[in-house]
């Protein structure tokens, strides 16, 4: 079920109303049933995978907690990791691995049959709930928390519908205890939740899906375009992917908040970042904190030699690229960001004195703006790899952008949805203005404290503004494919 579907518009109010009408002791069961319904609307049989992942971690965590010997605890942890990542590998990476193997073998004149893996449908959100489920077992193993004895509540933790298919990837220490609390209807929280959902829908329907009209056309047949359409496309996709994914997170967080649940912040105005390292602390926060806590730090983190630290960075970003998708373009996307961070770290010692010399006193603000622009463009360029269906297409875009300077001619060949771009641009400016204000003061806090006519006016503007300006083509969220 898509958030931007009529199905969800009917589903969510009914679930909310019944949730608060039900006695507290039955709510977990109701939410669990609603979450499985939400998930199985896509492909009912994949509910089995979700249940399997839940059972693996429930049993593994209980055994880890019960075991007295370290070796036994490790074995149960390994069982959880093998089970979860085995499922993930089978459904997401097997085809990729087979193709890669075939390419290597064909280099030596051999071949393997690939037919069996091509038809497998990727279970939606599998990367998200696998990481969430595994993090629980690791937390129990690390002694961060006690195992959850209530299977139903644990299953709800893995499948909680607002964040099930595209995050934020929650930690058990944060979300699981909330399922044992008695949530009362709170109009102020509901208003904040609705406001955040409204912002999410604005991002998705007004910005992301509008820009997608252009981006999908160009990336669909890149050979037909060049120069300016490519440049526009690179910027458009950068905003599309941000608005799409952060929009999903906002809807998820807002929906959960209406029901009384607090989900983690997933985006924090990432395009205001001054370095790539800072960017990754503000973009998809829940995923990169997962990699930091469960991969980077166990590998030695920053408390090791420079060479080892840089290797750790490359491992983490390579894996994070692979997490996004089973293709070399994604791996390179991740590695490129690792390289950005390493280069940034290596050059910091001479960049800082130069910056102090070039931008003294009041010019620091200009330095700040340049840093933000450089970071933004590093990310925007890396997204060529992220969005291209192959390395050849990615190269076509890069070379077309750098070599085709006949922009007037290429503008005339630009795809039809060009007229949607000004509206998209205005929406992006509005969004960034909101982000800038939000950095200084909390807009939801101020609105929540405002009198009801103000609240209602904001609500009507948001509701009807989205209805009029949105693009309602039922586009999936970009991150659903991961």
């Amino acid at each position: 079920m898509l958030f931007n579907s009529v199905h969800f518009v009917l589903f969510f109010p009914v679930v909310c109303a019944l949730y608060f009408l039900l006695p507290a002791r039955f709510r977990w069961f109701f939410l669990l049933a609603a979450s499985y319904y939400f998930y199985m609307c896509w492909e009912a049989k994949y509910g089995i995978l979700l249940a399997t992942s839940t059972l693996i971690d429930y049993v593994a965590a209980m055994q880890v907690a019960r075991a007295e010997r370290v070796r036994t605890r490790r074995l149960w942890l390994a069982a959880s990791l093998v089970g979860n990542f085995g499922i993930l590998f089978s459904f997401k990476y097997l085809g990729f691995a087979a193709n890669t193997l075939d390419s290597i073998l064909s280099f030596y004149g051999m071949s393997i049959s690939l037919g069996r893996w091509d038809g497998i449908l990727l279970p939606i959100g599998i990367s998200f709930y696998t990481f969430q489920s595994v993090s629980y077992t690791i937390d129990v193993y690390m002694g961060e928390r006690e195992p959850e004895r209530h299977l139903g509540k644990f299953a709800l933790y893995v499948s909680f519908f607002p964040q099930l298919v595209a995050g934020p990837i929650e930690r058990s220490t944060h979300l699981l205890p909330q399922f044992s609390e008695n949530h009362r209807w709170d109009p102020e929280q509901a208003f904040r939740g609705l406001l955040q959902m409204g912002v999410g829908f604005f991002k998705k329907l007004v910005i992301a899906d509008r820009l997608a009209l252009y981006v999908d056309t160009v990336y669909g047949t890149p050979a037909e375009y060049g120069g300016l359409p490519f440049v526009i496309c690179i910027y458009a996709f950068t905003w599309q992917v941000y608005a799409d994914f952060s929009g999903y997170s906002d809807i998820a967080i807002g929906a959960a908040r209406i029901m009384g649940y607090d989900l983690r912040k997933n985006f924090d105005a990432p395009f205001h970042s001054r370095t790539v390292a800072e960017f990754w602390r503000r973009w998809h926060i829940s995923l990169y904190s997962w990699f930091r806590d469960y991969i980077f730090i166990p590998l030695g983190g920053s408390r090791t030699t420079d060479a080892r630290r840089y290797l750790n960075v490359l491992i983490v970003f390579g894996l994070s690229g692979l997490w996004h998708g089973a293709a070399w373009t994604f791996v390179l996307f991740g590695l490129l960001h690792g390289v950005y961070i390493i280069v940034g770290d290596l050059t910091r010692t001479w960049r800082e004195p130069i910056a102090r010399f070039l931008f003294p006193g009041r010019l620091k603000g200009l330095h700040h703006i340049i840093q933000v622009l450089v970071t933004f463009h590093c990310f925007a360029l890396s997204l060529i790899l992220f969005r291209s269906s192959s390395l050849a297409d990615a190269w076509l875009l890069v070379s077309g952008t750098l070599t085709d300077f006949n922009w007037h001619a290429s503008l005339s060949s630009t795809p039809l949805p060009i007229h949607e771009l000004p509206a998209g641009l205005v929406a992006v400016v509005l969004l960034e203005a909101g982000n800038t204000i939000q950095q200084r003061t909390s807009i939801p806090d101020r609105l929540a404290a405002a009198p009801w006519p103000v609240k209602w006016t904001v609500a009507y503007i948001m509701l009807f503004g989205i209805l009029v300006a949105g693009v309602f083509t039922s586009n999936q969220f970009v991150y659903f494919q991961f």
Partner: protein
Amino acid sequence: MPRRLPLVVNLVAFAIVAVFVHSGLRYGYFRHVMAAKRGCLIREKEFARSNDEVSFAFFGNSHVMMGLAPRLIPDSVGFATLGEGYMVTYGKLREMLDHRKPQVRAIAMQLDLHSFGASQIDQTGQPYWAQYADFPRLAADTTRTVPVLMDWLRYKEFPYVGSLSVIAKTLSQDDQLVRDRQVEILTGDFSKHEDKQGLTMLRLHEHVPEGSWYCEESAAYLRRCLRFCRDHGIRVVLIRFPLTRIYWENVFRFIPIDKWEAKTREILADFPEVIVWDYHDVFFDHEEYFTDPNHLNVTGAEIFSKMVRDRFVELEKTLTSGNSPDSPPPVTDFGGRRRSPDR
């Protein structure tokens, strides 16, 4: 500290205001936006303003709209729109005649070769047409019940949803350019067209996509139109509009004419009071009267309107003399003037 209203009161009050806002947007959209159909809105206003002495109303598609000039035909008003099928015409008949103009004596509609095509029924996706579509009936008639009901919500109840670009287009459109474009279409001369065969095939592919020339739903809506008019004592004139020879010579590749005629006769057999005027071949030797293979230009429309004017005058005399709609038709020449290329 302001007093907090109960949740239910809040929700109801919020919903009431929302309904008002929605109604305002919906009304504004139907009345003032719909850029692509602004010509229809103008014609609709003309129809609403027309006096009670109107005898003939012209409903249907572009052939009616571009072929019959109301200013040349006494006591007539045009209410046809581009691409309109019988389903929409039926809705417009109900809306305009049932509620506003019951005194209209006769209506004229097209009887085109592609009138029964599936594309003529799948017309709910445009707000202008959707406002006339009888969605509950359409949903009951079709196997696509859920999509039709969704179209109802989307195009009839919430036409402004996702319409920012349409609104922007309307606000920014240059009326003079629009008029120039219309003049260009109306004054086009097909005889001077460089690729007549190509344009003809393009039109045929548009009209009869993938050979889908007959669809029961379209035929059912023609029956409904005819039954509705009979029930309201309104005479129907079905007109086969002039075509170019090249169109006629190519249409056989897409539509089996004999089967089309059989289907048409089957429908008309239940409505003996319906009048059919067949003019499809009248301008076979006059490509200069057309703007494209099957649409008259302003010259052709003027000549054609003058041709049918006398028949309309005659019909009016017949109707005002007290001839009941059940009496035999004064003129029926369906098939009588047909010519195929091999004859």
